[in-house]
């Protein structure tokens, strides 16, 4: 009985969990952006690489 949380404590717990979820979602967004950034960078590197190879071939 003594360990039972008050209504306010339960609400605080629910809110804390929700905020943690929101933080996780923000990280998920950053991860999405990172993934596409990586793709763009890889494509750029490929172009540079090919142009360098082309230059050496000459």
């Amino acid at each position, binding site marked *: 009985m003594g360990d039972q949380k008050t*209504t306010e404590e339960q609400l605080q717990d*629910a809110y804390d969990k929700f905020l943690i979820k929101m933080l996780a979602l923000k990280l998920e967004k950053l991860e*999405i952006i990172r993934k596409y950034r990586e793709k763009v960078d890889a494509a750029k590197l490929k172009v540079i690489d090919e142009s360098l190879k082309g230059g050496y071939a000459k």
Partner: protein
Amino acid sequence: MTTIPTIPAFPQLPEGIPPMPSIEGVAEKSSEVVGLISKGAEGAVRNVGHFGDGLKSSLEKELSPSDAQNIANDMAAVDRSAKEAFEQLQEEVRKISGNGESHTPPRTETTSNKPPAEVLRGEVVFSNGEWLADDINEQTKKWLNSHNYGEFAGEFTGEEKQKARDFGKGVYQNAEEKVKAGKHPVDENPLEALKKIETDGDDGESMRLLIRIAVRAGIKIATIIAQNIAKDKDVPKELRIAAGIFADSMGMVDQIVAGDEHTNLGQDISRYIKERNAAKLSEHGE
């Protein structure tokens, strides 16, 4: 002493993780806590919605069209998760505050036409219309494209999205004012109606479509369409109430845009909403 966390309406987010609102040291009464959670959670969902926008738009310029679409879809999926978490929290808060000793005041199904002020204060209103600025679904886009309204189907630009958010906010503010004034019939609470259609895919979609028309074709034409929906007995009640509030809200905004090229738009949209509703009813054997 009660500390109320302040959440800016449209926070300017740095591209790091901004601090989340906290409810530490808040009030003794759970109804006050519920109000604070409501505000804080709403701000947090909005933060997630805007988060990464800057990085995304600078990256988009370098992406192929298909990847630009993919990243938009991926980000939108995260936004949807945030809204779902929001709904879950809303549900949980209702459950918790319904079980404790000091609670959220009763909901608005009262015998009086004028709801008591406590109802508004304690009620968990998580949305301020942000969802109205969301993208429309594929089915609606398909219909728009097949009826020569392709210009309404495309994704919002940043500026349009902001405009849509402002309109959505206006609709909710107007609904809140109507509830405060208590001028609506007991069973036609506009805030309740908006909350119901938020979770109904089709009705919510109709409202998003109205906002889209307001942004792209102008408030005047969107208001006329909304007025027709509000009067149409074949349309679900919540959507009629919400459309009425929409028409009323848009009427307050000082912007005149219309366009002769959209002379059939009103009729076509009303027909689409009705047909879709009729199809839904027949699916359920009603």
